[in-house]
């Protein structure tokens, strides 16, 4: 009887402790607010910007090589209001997206196949690793010969860059599945299909999401390479065109647009990642 009471009390307090810790994870009780934390990240670039503007203002750095932030902003407004910026950004974003979807999608698919089946690993992995070792820049001349300087060569170059992170991380995620959970799947009578859908793939999601982020980063990188080398449109073209006329502010605008676009896509992926990995128990800082 007494034991019962202890047991019940135990369950009750366990319940309270559980829900309290759950709430604690969502809302931090003390410490600086979200805005203050976000502001922390702006401190450094903000300071640099102010210093830069001041140095330019007093003519202490070359206006040709380091145009003042104010000049860059003006150039940004000109490009934005003429529509030139948006047209080029649209072209670049479209290239990145299609290259990422093609390369990343293929990387995910092959990563799954090679991860799941040892035979396909033996068949495909050595060749893929060989291709991985070829620098992207080295295949550019070949791509241009084959496909001209049209969209295909650029999208393919981006796809090659985006392929490998997703391929490798998907593969690693699948191979990293905990053997102990495999035993559970066997005891629960999972079919081979269920083992893949309900164990292997969910277990690989953290790695796959990391692969997505790295692939996206490399896709933007591939875009810049493609557009700087041979192109008649896009942000990269806008930059190399400006370089020829020594229009340094436009080059800076291009850099800033690339940085912003990269950050934006990465943030979007991270939001998806957070949602997908709500279950993960790891250090949040």
């Amino acid at each position, binding site marked *: 009887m007494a034991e019962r009471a202890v047991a019940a009390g135990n369950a009750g307090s366990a319940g309270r402790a559980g829900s309290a810790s759950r709430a604690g994870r969502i809302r931090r009780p003390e410490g600086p607010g979200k805005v203050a934390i976000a502001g922390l990240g702006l401190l450094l670039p903000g300071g640099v910007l102010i210093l830069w503007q001041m140095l330019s203002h007093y003519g202490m750095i070359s206006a040709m090589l380091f145009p003042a932030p104010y000049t860059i902003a003006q150039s940004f407004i000109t490009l934005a209001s003429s529509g030139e910026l948006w047209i080029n950004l649209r072209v670049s974003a479209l290239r990145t997206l299609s290259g990422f979807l093609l390369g990343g999608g293929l990387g995910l698919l092959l990563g799954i196949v090679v991860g799941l089946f040892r035979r396909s690993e033996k068949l495909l992995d050595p060749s893929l690793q060989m291709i991985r070792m070829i620098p992207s820049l080295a295949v550019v001349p070949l791509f241009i010969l084959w496909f001209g300087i049209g969209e295909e060569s650029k999208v393919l170059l981006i796809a090659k860059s985006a392929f490998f992170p997703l391929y490798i991380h998907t593969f690693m995620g699948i191979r990293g599945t905990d053997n102990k959970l495999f035993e559970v799947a066997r*005891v629960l009578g999972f079919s081979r299909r269920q083992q893949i859908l309900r164990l292997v793939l969910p277990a690989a999601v953290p790695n796959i999401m990391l692969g997505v982020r790295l692939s996206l980063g490399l896709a933007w990188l591939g875009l810049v390479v493609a557009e700087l080398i041979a192109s008649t449109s896009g942000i990269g073209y806008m930059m190399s065109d400006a370089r020829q006329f020594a229009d340094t502010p436009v080059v800076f605008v291009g850099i800033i647009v690339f940085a912003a676009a990269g950050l934006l896509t990465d943030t979007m992926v991270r939001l998806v990642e957070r949602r997908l990995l709500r279950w993960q128990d790891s250090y949040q800082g």
Partner: protein
Amino acid sequence: MGEALLSIRQLNKRFDTAGGQVQALEDVELEVEEGEFITVIGPSGCGKSTLLRIIAGLDTGYTGSVTLEGKAIGGPGIDKGFIFQEHRLFPWLTVEKNIASDLPLGRPDIRQRVDELIELVKLGGFETAYPRELSGGMAQRVAIARALLRSPKVLLLDEPFGALDAFTRAHMQTVLLDIWRRNRTTMIFVTHDIDEAVFLGNRVVILEPRPGKIRKIVPIDLPYPRKKTTTSFQELRLKVLNYFEKVDELELKDGAGI
């Protein structure tokens, strides 16, 4: 007595390792009736886990026969529930989805059974919590519910409460006995805690190590619910402990530690 639910005859299991051969189990004979609660006790490395894993179909390559309802164990499956020492829940699934696992929670009959089991293991209010939000005892209760949903013919538990503190452990013992009283699921429960073995089991199987052998099977003829403080409980506990100490002496003579 009719045909036993589970019968183990002349079971021998040897592991071939780099360091030589290990006789994990030798000539194990055990008959388990339907609805029985068997506890298995013995020092570390005496083959308790190996015995359970063979019954579960997880380990193969033994000699002798192991039959469930007269049929040889083919491989792992839902008729043999298994609770590991760690809860082994799927970390990405909530409590209720872990219990359902591969079964569709959307089906009304499964939904209802899952809800009943959550009630049975006293986890109401935690249906949508993730494993990381649970205490060790709660997670282990989810694992038990997950096994029970499949209505196993026998539930195999390998030191399921070994990692829990004394209070939680005592609580889990009453929860498990409650489940057993209601469902009459046949249980084989491995532990290295003598109190736990005597408190739970109809019979206590005492294993001795190197090679893993049954030393003695002690029937515990005490009515449930048992109280650990009664003299009859203490007498039986001492009886089991006695065999245990003989096992210890045996080990010391061989110059091997636990």
